[in-house]
């Protein structure tokens, strides 16, 4: 199988949301065919490593296969939250792009093959 390395932002979308000192990041595959590859590579442990500088006390990954999406929930990473943080982005709104900057391996052919067969049908 031919694979290539891409940055996550090339194939997926992400949006951050906050509640208190907890951050969630929704990660959505632009092409649902990429879902299995991301399920394998963008694990809770990997996301915890990306945000290690913020010392999360817990990272959860929720899988949403029907949406080809994941929801990551990171506890205690917002420096106390928007009403307590000394930082500029107390909501953590920019943090989705920290996740989108990681590299992933995706198959070149299956995705295009699926697209082609869908067109034929």
């Amino acid at each position, binding site marked *: 199988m031919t694979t290539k390395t891409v940055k996550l*932002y*090339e194939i997926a*979308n992400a*949006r951050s*949301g*906050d*509640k*208190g*000192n*907890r951050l*969630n990041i*929704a990660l*959505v595959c*632009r092409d649902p065919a990429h879902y299995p590859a991301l399920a394998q590579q963008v694990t809770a442990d990997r996301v915890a490593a990306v945000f290690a*500088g*913020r010392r999360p006390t817990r990272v*959860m990954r*929720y899988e*949403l296969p*029907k*949406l080809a*999406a994941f*929801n990551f*929930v990171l506890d205690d990473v917002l420096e106390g*939250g*928007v*009403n*307590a943080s*000394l*930082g*500029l*982005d107390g909501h953590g709104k*920019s*943090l989705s*792009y*920290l996740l989108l900057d990681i590299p992933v391996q995706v198959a070149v052919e299956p995705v295009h093959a699926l697209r082609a067969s869908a067109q034929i049908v």
Partner: protein
Amino acid sequence: MASKVFIGAGAGFAGDRTDAAGPVVDALARLAGPRFLMFETLAERTLALSQLERRRDPRRGFNPALDRFIAPVLARCLRDEIRIIGNFGAANPRAAAARILALAREQGLRPPRVAVVEGDDLTGILSAKQLAARETAGAILRDATDIISANLYLGAGPIAQALDQGAEIVVTGRVADSALALGPLIHAFRWRSDDWDRLAAGTLAGHLLECGAQVTGGYFADPPYKEVSAMADLGYPIAEIYADGDLVITKPPGTGGRVDRLTVIEQLLYEIHDPAAYLGPDVVLDISAVTVEELAPDRVRVRGARGRPAPETLKATVCVDGGMLGEAEISYAGPNAAARARLAAETIRERMRKRAPGLVVRTDAIGVISVLGDNGAALAEPWPSGAADVRLRFAAQSASAAEVELLLDEVEALYCAGPAGGAGVRRRLTPRLASASCLVERKFASPRVVLLGDAP
């Protein structure tokens, strides 16, 4: 009973575009069936600020954005029977209702039937100590004596009741954001209070609408990966909801933006934690089996929400004095800017260690490392040597304004005593509110509806 209901969103937060509701109202006016326009304008902090304002003047304390949002669409909504639901009542829904009646008078309109939803305010019901005992995480309330605001998130029931009583405009204080849509749906479809899947679908509709353009291409564009047309004229969302709970998200024709699988899913998961358990006052919403389907350009069907009985307790947000936040900035630009900025940062740190040893000072180098940084390891790393335009930002917080001002004075003093070429100092001192979340027994909620204006 209605077979289909239309709900448009006129605003997704207090600072939203005030001309967004116009095209939504135009589109709603051309549709047949029950039609509603919702405004979500009440962030966590907004309510506490409104409560402070009400303390100073009992006629104030509602959202100051009320006029800007309502004035442009009031006449058309009344004429075309588009009913308005908004949480712009903040700390004083009655005063907001009075303001709407005055606005109608000023515009030469008949007095609308305005209903007020009250009973979210817990101050005077629970003491600081009782609230502290119900705080869910952290200990912000442990030593608090002066509670600025304490508000329950009420559900959709009182909104539906107000509409049942013929209200054309419903003004609330704190309610669950999604209740602004669920209320009209319970009213129009007569959904039972234990019809969990239906209540879940209505909550989902509200969740998709409550942030305005965030579902129609706002907060989405990232060219060339994510293109959105006509960002300057984004169409705000309209949901078509059916009696069985299926819904379609769309936007007014001829507006900018984009409604497709990707914009809808981003908003679907916005501020969600466990997708199987989104807790609300009326129902626990499970979106784990929801499907999102593109029907036509800018028309997306969302279905499959499931519901479970609502939790025993209600969420409340409690705000207390959070001291003063001080921020000061200075720029360094041109050759060797990064080295000069770094020297300035080290100088400030050394001065502050001597002058206010206990004060935590955060340093950001805007243009090098700021929002993605953590004020620790990242700043200690060598900065990119090419950085030729660096804006340093320092921030600290304290119960004592004087202590924070020491930092601001030190940054300003860099003008003469810091590295070469320091420029553009700005300093700001802002009062802060600390907010805590509590879980409160339902017996402390006393939701009630008060109808003003002409009886139907």
